């Protein structure tokens, strides 16, 4: 059952017009790496790849935006267009409905963002340390799970999940976490950077991470588990009404 709902959800998401935009965003990241590769930049490939490509573009923008688009729409759209009724009027525990609605957007976000990071990384890093690329991809995949869990929860809590999610990404993680260091402990972006940095290994502080890899991993697990449990509880009590 879960596998069937998973494939249904993947098809739903892939067929959305906004998925084309997200694929375009991935291609743009690859293009930027390619332009760097053929240009005469004074920055070393290792530094450019970690600080500009990953730290400045993929982790900061592409990952949260992709997760936001998939995460808020996966259940939010079904509640909006009424198709959620076909899932919710079945004798299934709610977690069996929720699980594929988290795994599907996570897989898609990981494939798109991880794929773009992998290809663009190998283009830009040239003869540098490929551990940076692997570290970034693993960190991105783990960070994607926490982002998706958060955004799916938001879509069950508010009709304005997209706006609230954008505020979280750009105001909380972007502006406030830059000013107040403590906020970085409540920032999935910084968990992603911390984990990527730990896995990249032999170049210390590659991603300007604020926390250790183990701390990042624990926080990712806590955020994901909390959001999933809350979303499950919320889905038990979700109301569906005809269009007013």
């Amino acid at each position, binding site marked *: *059952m879960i596998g069937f709902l998973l494939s*249904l959800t993947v098809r739903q998401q892939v067929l959305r017009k906004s998925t084309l935009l997200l694929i375009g965003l991935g291609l743009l990241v690859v293009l930027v790496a390619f332009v760097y590769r053929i240009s005469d930049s004074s920055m070393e490939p290792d530094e450019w790849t970690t600080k500009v490509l990953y730290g400045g573009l993929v982790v900061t923008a592409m990952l949260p935006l992709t997760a936001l688009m998939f995460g808020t729409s996966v259940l939010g759209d079904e509640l909006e267009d009424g198709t959620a009724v*076909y*899932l919710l*009027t079945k004798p299934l525990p709610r977690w069996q409905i929720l699980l594929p609605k988290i795994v599907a957007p996570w897989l898609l976000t990981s494939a798109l963002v991880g794929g773009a990071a992998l290809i663009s990384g190998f283009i830009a890093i040239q003869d540098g340390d490929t551990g940076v690329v692997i570290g970034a991809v693993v960190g991105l995949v783990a960070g994607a799970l926490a982002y998706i869990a958060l955004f799916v929860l938001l879509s069950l809590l508010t009709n304005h999940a997209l706006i609230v999610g954008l505020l979280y990404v750009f105001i909380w993680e972007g502006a406030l976490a830059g000013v107040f260091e403590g906020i970085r402990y409540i920032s999935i972006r910084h968990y992603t950077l911390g984990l990527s940095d730990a896995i990249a290994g032999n170049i210390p502080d590659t991603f300007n991470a604020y926390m250790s890899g183990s701390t990042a991993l624990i926080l990712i697990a806590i955020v994901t588990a909390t959001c999933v449990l809350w979303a499950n509880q919320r889905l038990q*009590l979700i109301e569906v009404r*005809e269009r007013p």
Partner: protein
Amino acid sequence: MTATVAEAPVTTTDAVSVESISRWYGNVVAVNEISFALGPGITGLLGPNGAGKSTLLHMLAGLLRPSAGRATILGESTWANPKIYKHIGFVPERETVYPFLTGLDFVKLSARMHNLPDVDAAALRAIERVEMTDAMGRATGGYSKGMKQRVKIAAAIVHEPSILLLDEPFNGADPRQRLRMMDMLREMAANGATIVFSSHILEEVERLAENVLVIVSGRLAASGDFHAIRRLMTDRPHSIMLRSSDDRRFASALIGQPAVFGVEIVDGHVVLHTSDLEAFALVAPRIAKEQSVTIYEMAPTDESLESVFSYLVRR
């Protein structure tokens, strides 16, 4: 085929029951303290648009939390209780389905989610019942409104539920499809199912439901045997606007007739009130002839469904 509608008392053995159920959105009361209990058979929820029928059906289906009171299916509360869906089929009014799925896949999805032992056979059986076999291989995105309605019904009955709730099920269906769907629902009811459907069209309810719950402004205006309610509707006072070659003379002659109990001038027109429309229809031409008056127009002023329902509420 039997069906019962009772306002009280509600027992735990009733297939469907609601007890003093209300639902409000902020200051707006959508459903106001409704109670009834239903057994097997077909029951129509009749009322004008916005009367609260959909809200009531959604509460019955466990999709909306009652603000007060409760809805039960086979004695179990419907709210936040997914287990009850083993017994319920629900057909929403909205026509949205997964547009990329074929009709067959859509019904199979429902069968899988009900954990049926033979998904393919159950889906095919349900599709055949709504006569969608020819189109079952096509994506539902290309279906007409009536076809979507039928495939939604197939998905709702794939597990052969004992209770079927349908929100405006005949919207978009052509007359032939409508008759077929009605036959299918009658057959289900004859086999012991409890079927509740909403409609704002009197004729639909008249043709299908033995019992009716009339909902107006969120309140239960009338309930019970359809024919008794229909008689109430027919026997109510009627107002008729009159236009003739000599309105005053004609009205003066009519006021002496037992069928006419009042006359007034509204916006310059004579409006007559009668409690017996049939008798009035017989007497009016005779009086006109006797008085040498030519009738230009006689039109009812209050035949909208809303005014009929309002009358039921006032009673």
